[in-house]
């Protein structure tokens, strides 16, 4: 199945100019841009998980971006979404989703909902996504956008993501989409044994490392730095 999907995607990407996107629908004016993004920025940059590629090609990124920046939705860069926060560049969203090796049964915690785009992409490859956003305005906006687009397996809460979402713990995977100076101990506690976590650690915008953390079956933590990357900071950390 995975192989077939991959072949389908590759064929579509290869024949992009001649062939319309089957899942974008005739009324999606940005489908071509999105496919080009997947081809050039995601697949071309080394992302190979077919489910992630499919999710990236399906989720209408432009609908998570403020209207004034919508024309740049599929450009390879982060964009402002208000409250000094940004929506990460497409490659980073795909990279973080892929590295977590999400399964359809996984329960995922996302810290830093922001626009809701990362949650939407993760929801395509995981079972449930619980996402926490500290800013009320962003939490409301992303909740509305996700509901409007029919993402029923994404649950948004306004609060301090540093403390995770205790009531729904433990999680199979945790995605922290905003950088911090350390890994919050509450998040480590809420990560299931055998779970994976990815988080940018370091400064607010640049020269950060994306840290991949695994919790072994015995609860032992191991980590490795996987990519220097730029993110909005996990506020106050």
């Amino acid at each position, binding site marked *: 199945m995975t192989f077939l999907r991959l072949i389908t995607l590759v064929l579509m990407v290869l024949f992009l100019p001649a062939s319309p996107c089957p899942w974008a629908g005739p009324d999606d004016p940005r489908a071509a841009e999105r496919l080009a993004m997947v081809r050039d920025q995601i697949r071309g940059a080394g992302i190979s998980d077919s489910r992630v590629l499919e999710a990236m090609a399906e989720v209408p990124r432009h609908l998570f971006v403020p209207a004034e920046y919508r024309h740049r939705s599929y450009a*390879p*860069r982060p964009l402002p979404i208000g*409250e*000094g926060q940004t929506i990460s560049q497409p490659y980073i969203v795909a990279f973080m989703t892929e590295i977590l090796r999400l399964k359809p049964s996984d329960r995922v915690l996302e810290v830093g909902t922001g626009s809701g785009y990362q949650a939407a992409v993760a929801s395509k490859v995981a079972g449930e996504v619980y996402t926490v956003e*500290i*800013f*009320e305005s962003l939490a409301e906006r992303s909740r509305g956008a996700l509901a409007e687009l029919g993402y029923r397996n994404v649950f948004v809460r306004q609060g*301090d993501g*540093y403390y995770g979402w205790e009531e729904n713990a433990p999680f199979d995977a945790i995605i922290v989409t905003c950088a911090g*100076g*350390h*890994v*919050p*101990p*509450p998040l*480590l*506690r809420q990560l299931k044994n055998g779970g994976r976590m990815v988080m940018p*650690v*370091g*400064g*607010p*915008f*640049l*020269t*950060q*490392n994306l*840290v991949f*953390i695994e919790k072994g079956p015995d609860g032992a*933590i191991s*980590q*490795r*730095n996987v990519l*220097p*990357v*730029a993110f909005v*900071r996990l*506020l*106050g*950390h």
Partner: protein
Amino acid sequence: MAPSRSAMSSPSPSSVSLATEAPFRGSVLPAVFLLSAAALANEIFLIRLLSFRFWPHFVPLIVSQAMLGFGAAGVALHLLRDRIDKAPRPAFAWLILLAAPSFDLAFRASRHVAFDPFLLLWDPAAWPAFGLFFLLLAVPFFLAGGAIAVPFAFRFGRPGPVYAACFAGSAAGAVIALAAFPLVPTDALLRFPLGLGLAAGAFLLKEPGAGPRWARRAVWGVSLLLLLLPPAELSPSPYKDLAIARRLPEGRVLATRFGPSGDYRAVYAPGIHSAPGLSFRFTGDVPPQAALFHDGEARGVVPSGGGKDPPAYLGYFPSAMAYRMVSRPAVLQFGLRGTEGILAAAGNGAASVTVVEPAAELVVLVRDDLAGFSGGWPASLKTEILAEGARNFLARERRRFDLIEVAEISSANFSSLGIHATGETFLLSREGIRSALSLLTERGLIAFSGWLKSPPRESVKILATIRKELERGGGLASDRVVMARGWGSFVVLARRASFTEEEYLRARRFCEEMGFSMVWPRPAGSASEGAEEKALRDAVENALTGFSGDRGSGLFDLSPVTDDSPYFHRFLKLRSLPEFRRLLGNQWVPFVEWGMVFLLLSLAVSLALAAVCLLFPLAFARLRETAGGAAFAAYFSSLGLAYMLVELTYLKIGILILGDPIRAATAAIGGFAFFSGLGSAFSARWESAQTMRRWICPAIAILAPAGFLFLSLSAEALLPKGGALRTVSFLASLAPAGFLMGVPFPAALSRLFRAAPSSIPFAWGINGFFSVAGASLASVGALWIGFRGTVAAGGALYLLAGALFPRVGKPGDP
């Protein structure tokens, strides 16, 4: 004064006005005095305000703006001289009346320009905004420069007293600026130039022959209203740490302090959880914290109640390793990072801690204002906080310490953007490290900690610096260094004596406990290390055991820095630029040093604007006589460039001598303004070609580097002295050169006035253009050829100017 500034006070009178213009009744001198003070104070305050809004190191930009404004005023006056000649008094009065509100309005208006330095590389639309921002802040200098120049260009009586008022005003402006910093909040600083401008304008309200009085009074009244309005809100860039903290729900400011060292604020919000580099073995809770900000940049945290009970998490950082190597140490820490450093020392069993922090404002804020929140200092620890510069302390201190901590040499906060690439760091130069090592006990340790970058930079550069200093006395540095890393941070321990096997074992045990890893000595059998870990270990091994003095074949310059070019955070190698260009758009973001990028971009933008404002208007000027052709152009461009190279390099060494950038900027800009103004007043005595060529210019070429060399060579002797003596020494060293540097521009203008008056606007324009360029080029020079090289280049340009002087104003080249 800078060339265009000294040029404002240069004699280039119109032929008509020389003897016919009656002076105002006693209003010119006080008005010129007050406006000169306002302009200089405005220049210094803008340095602080832009530090707060964006980042430090805006000095070249501010000086460029001032030069642009002054230069454009000179060009405008000369282009409009026929019109102004008919009514110079109204011109004088209105320029002063308009200059006053411009100090406030220009800054208010600039806040509405959608400019942020970070967008310059991302978004081409940011460039026009930058241009507009730059021009807006140049407007007050244009108006003030024009006003001050009118009495000289259209002589209102004897020029001598006007000169005196001008340069005395500049000196007063510097003094007022320094005095004002602790008196008013940062956002109210521009009240002072506005107030001084208003006071200057008040002298012109009743003067006859300066246009309708009601109109003057109306404008003055509106300016007065501005003074009564609340000052413009000072908002930091949304990318700065303070802006981020302010956005946190339930965030509130606990305390604020301000002064010459900066603007310091403590903010509390439930969402603040700062523990950079915390081990993931820590499973407890981080207590509530207040975060501290210096000009909007994070400067550590104060854990709630930590003074009564040091929080456990403080023992879970790589920097805690130092405390495993020494028992009950007497600790010296550089920089007050909230209370964390002190609490960590207490929690790790230190006997005493001495903290050296140059900002007295921060000391008061942490010690007094936040005492209730922090719970004071731990009773078990003898705590001493000294408000003085790190190098000053190192130069005077005789005690020895078991542990010297230099934390956050690379940080996880806003500064990780590379904004300090163009900032001077005298503590991390070879001389600074040497001084620190000299205060260690026999087996004492020096510890450096910070954030790792990938590829590694600060972590390796500090090792290269330590190696140089440790190996000065012979032996290898490699057995006197230990380095460990957490998942994003590192600690380097070094000492003059070798580490023992037992100490290495302790270091390894610490790493195992905390989940950190040893970097040096390189662990055996580290085959499982990832690519990033291997790259760090390779770089560290090369720094400690490779060819010493190797500037590295990698992308970055990781060689040690010295006091002559103390840019520890500059890693850019010019020959790496093609490689960076290749990576652009792919993985360039982590490599960018924004301070460097901004310096170069601001140079480009300021030159474009200077071309438009200073050179383009010359297309409408008629050159009726030949003025010396290429020699004429070369002379005025050399002066513009040379003055800036000399003045700004003195400013940079002033940061070492005087302890902080604002004091250095005040002393250097004010000092050169004062002494060059004085020199301008005497210029008429020395304007013969022979005197200029044989004496004045060669004397500048000798005195400028000589004064600088004096400062640089006597730094170690000066640093332990009191602030007053250091300031006097600094001013005395620049005075001879500064005085003579006021001579060449007015001497040449005077010559042109006689031989080729129509060329004077060209002289202004060319000089102004190269003054604008020189402000940024002085920083570029300091970064790549060092202070001494830059001052020497300035001296060489004065020699060139001296050789060219006889041809200025002479018919020759077309």
